[in-house]
Every structure is written in structure tokens, then in C-alpha cells.
């Protein structure tokens, strides 16, 4: 049984199950550098917000999978992930932690814990369930 590292809202159900190394993107410069590296297709992108502008060029240039730490399928990034058919797990939480995202009441430690645990891990996204998206270890 593969280890489920994190779970969150599944934006849309799909049999696509992309795998890659998680890359945490914290600033627009990270996004631009990743695109210019030519290695966008090797990574599952981990971001803090559920807005769409931050990831705009990455989505446009063919991101294969996205994990966010806030937001929902109705958020702009959720809508765009559906349109691009890019599997996306939103408001992901670590299965080994009790910390959860609460709107307007979540300190930085929550986001840092997730970024630290997932950045660099090789994973696969499972988005077959109607509601729950899963981040599965693929090391």
C-alpha cells in the first residue's frame, strides 16, 4: 500500500495520475526560473495560495500537477486547473499532522511544515475520488 503523504480537495475527478518531484514555489521569480529551466514537466508544483495569477505562466506552459495549501475547486486556480485538465489537490494537509488551514486564522508555521515535508519528494497525484485528492509517495 503506497503511503499517502497529504490529502485535500480534489478539483476534478480524472484518471490522470501525474508523477514527479515536488517543487515548492514561493515567489514569482521561482515560477519564472522553473519555466526557463525547461524542466517544468518534471515537477508537481506546490504553492501556498489558491489564486491563479501566481502560477499563470506555469499553467499556460504545461504544468503536470498542482498542490495548494489553501483554496477550493471554486477558487480561480481550481477553475483554471479544471480547464487545463491539470490534476490539482487544494488545501492539502499532511496526513501525519493535525494542523489544518483555517481562513484568516492560519499562521506561517502551518504552511512551512507542509512545504518542508513535501518539497523534493517524488510523488504521484491520485485524483480519482469525487471529493478527495491524494498525494502519494512515489520514491
Amino acid at each position, binding site marked *: 500500500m503506497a503511503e499517502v503523504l497529504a490529502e485535500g480537495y480534489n478539483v476534478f475527478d480524472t484518471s490522470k495520475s501525474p508523477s514527479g518531484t515536488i517543487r515548492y514555489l514561493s515567489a514569482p521569480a521561482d515560477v519564472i526560473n522553473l519555466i526557463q529551466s525547461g524542466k517544468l514537466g518534471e515537477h508537481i508544483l506546490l504553492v501556498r495560495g489558491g489564486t491563479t495569477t501566481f502560477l*499563470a505562466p506555469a499553467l499556460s506552459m504545461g504544468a503536470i500537477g498542482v498542490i495548494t495549501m489553501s483554496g477550493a475547486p471554486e477558487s480561480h486556480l481550481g477553475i483554471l486547473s479544471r480547464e487545463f485538465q491539470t490534476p490539482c489537490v487544494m488545501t492539502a494537509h499532511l496526513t501525519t499532522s493535525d494542523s489544518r488551514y483555517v481562513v484568516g486564522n492560519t499562521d506561517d508555521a502551518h504552511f512551512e511544515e507542509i512545504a518542508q515535508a513535501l518539497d523534493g519528494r517524488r510523488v504521484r497525484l491520485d485524483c480519482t475520488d469525487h471529493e478527495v485528492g491524494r498525494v502519494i509517495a512515489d520514491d
Partner: protein
Amino acid sequence: MTTTEGKRATFKQRYEEADDGLRFQDLTYTGNFVGMEPVTDGIKGDKMMKSRAKSKVLEKVSKEDVLRDEFTIDELNDLNNYLAWNIWDVLVMRATEGVSGMIPRQEYEILAFMHEFYRWPEILRMTTEEVGGGQGIMDIGATARREIGTKVNAVHDWCIGAVGFGMGRCGLLALEVIKAGDYVGESNEILKFMQRVLWGKRQDGYILNSQDRYRCRIHEPDFLAQIAAQVEPLEPGSPKHGAFTQFNAAAELLSFLDHYDCRLGLGDTGPYELPDGNLLILRDLFVNEEVFHWSDVCDDAGLPHCYTLAIIIDPEKMALAEIRVNDISTTFTRPKNYIEAIVGGAVFARQKWNTPMGEVYPIKVDDLAEHLGKVQTATLKLYQKTARMNRRDLIWNGQYVYYIDMILPHLRLAGTYDKACRDYDFWEIDQRVANYYYDIVKRGFAQETVPSKIFSGAGYLPFPEGASLRSSKGRWL
């Protein structure tokens, strides 16, 4: 399709009178109805809100009702309550998205809300007078029935009342700079303008899509037939299908970016049922708005003002259970993934906002690659340009996107945009709002207080019984 095999479409049941629709979320709404049964989302929520109204303003209303000069206090309060629920219904889950990392949206949003509430009333009053009264505003709404690529659409029209009045007043109440009995006359001005545009557009007596089980079927049948005749069949999984859906996504993304991560760049209408049982969604994607100075990169890429996509969905292919075209012009379905059920499509381009309909041109799906390249180029350039902007510029640019663009299409068609700029300083920042720039970052006002008041419904205080319809703000104490 992995999860719908053997299932049939049931979405038509949603249009039966007794049907309450599906629940798209587990949350419920209270607003000003403390102690009463919580209100749900969707069709059931609409029914509950209508049943709690004191007036008939949420039912189908007549042309005479719409032409009446002003709402009563009961009507204002019913609209206030309904819009507050409607805002919750379409935005409560979106609002979980947190910080952007790119654009300070909560900050620009709250400034725009308050600016609109202060500044729009005299501009809307002038516009109504310039077009000869209420009928002229209804005629502006009606233009959308025979056009594509027009921003006289659900999201812009809804924003007049839901954002300029509802959220603007809510924000100012939360900031404690106005009281519930202030600005009754100005509120009436904004809401009457909204009602007239929307009624003129729909012409079925309702004003909002949520009142009609989330349908926005505004186009005339002969106009729709011309659009449908251009549709090309698309086989799911084929390269042609991929080209169409990829273009849809990329253009939609740029429309978000050009409008600072807000929904004003996107406009869906429908669902229109076609003779073969398939559904048509018409989607406007505004990828180049000429009044935004940052849109110069879209000019450089050779992009038109708007691409319009005719999207044909086979409801049986996805076992469609419910489809909502909500009041911010966005389509949501259950099951959620409608992309694999797209079986046909067509693309059109409108070069400028005022390009005549006869000059709107179709683009073959096989020719979309060239346009996709332009969209991707503009997206990367606009992203790099935006990433270099400082926080203050980002906030005020975003503020302009809301404050200007939400009523821009109506002023353009009324011929009053230049007058608003020249005689009413439309692009200036009101001194009160300029000062609020410093207040909104204190004590989490923009990030926590306002979203909490707006999305819980707790901040939409009713107008006091017996308040004068002429009331403005008599004192600053």
C-alpha cells in the same frame, strides 16, 4: 470518463418546480436571519431567501416595476439580504484561497468596494439622465441579447449591486465610517441601475441567474442559431479536441491575469439546450482591455479584445446531474469535469469592444495554434511585468480593475464614459478612500475582518424601518 459509466444525465430534474437542486457545499448561510433555519446553497437556498422576503422584489417583476424611480425600504432590505446570500453562494468557497503571492487581492478589493459605494451613485445618476431615464438603461441591458464579446454580462451587471452596493456598504459599515441608516438614496441609485440593466438583458422578469435555477439564457434564438451553425465536431481525446480545450484554458488564464485575478475577464451564458439534446455554453474571454495600461503587452502580441468560445457539452457523456451558470458568469457542473464531455466547439474574435457584430470573425479550430502562441506570449510578458510592480501599484491597479471595469461597459454604451472621466474625475481616487489605504492593513481588516463580514453575511445590516428614502449622510460624528 472513469466514474460515470452506466449512469444517465439527470440535470433536467433540476428544472422541475418541486426540485431543490443538489448541494455543492456543506456550509450554510445565516446572514440577517439569526435564529432561523440556516440557508443552503443552490436552488433550495434561492427558494428559502425568496420565502423570507417582505416585498415582491425577488419574484418576477414587471417593466413598470423596474421603471419606478426607487425601491421601498422593504425592497431595499430584501435585495440586500438576497445579494448577501448570493455573494456567499458563489464566493464562500473561492474565498478560502488565501494570499496570492503575486497580487494583493483582498487589499485592492476592499478599497474598490468602498470607492464604488461612494463614487458610483452620481455617475450612474448622470448616465441614467443622459440616456433619457430608466428605459435607456434597460435598453443597454438588452443589447447583450444579440451580441457576443460584450462586457454587458452577468458578472458586470451583478457587480453593480452585489459589489458596489452590497460589499461596498458592508465594508464601510465594518470600518465604522457609516451607519445602517446612511446613504439610502445612493443605495437606491445603485440598485435601480443594476435592476434595470439585468431586467433589460433577461426579459423574463427575473434579474439574477440564481432566481432562475442558475440559467442565463439571454440570447435571441435566431442569433444563437447563427453561432451554432459555426460549431465544429470535436472527438474527445483527439488532437482537435485538445487544441480547442487548450486554447479555452490558456485564453481564460490570460483573461484572469489581465483583470488582476478577478472574474471580470470571463463571461459565460447558457446553458442553451440544442435540438439534439446537447448543451451550448457561450464563453467570452476578454484577453485585452484597452483601458488598462498594462494591457499593452496584449496589444503587442496582436490580441483582440475578446475571444468567444461556443462550447457544446454532451450531458449524457458525463451523466450531468446539475449545471450552474452562476451570477459571476462561471459554469460549474456535477460531476465537476465537463471538459471530457465537450463534443463540439467554435471560436470567434471581436477586435475592439465596439467592433460591429458583422465584423466579428470565426477562427477555425485548426487555426488556433497561432492564436494560442499569442496568448502564451502575452501571458508570460504580463506576468514578468506584474512581478516587477511594487505593492502599492499592484493594489491601486487592482482597485481600478474593479472600480472602473465593473461599470465601464454600461458607460461605454451610454456614451457617458468620456463625460465621467472629464466632468466626474472617474479615474481619480476619492480622498476618503486614499486614506483608507492605510487603515485596511491594520488589525487584519482586509485579510480577516472584511472577508468574515462579507462571507458570513453578518455585515449586511438592514436599513432601519422608517428610514427616509432621501437619506444620505447628514453628519460625520
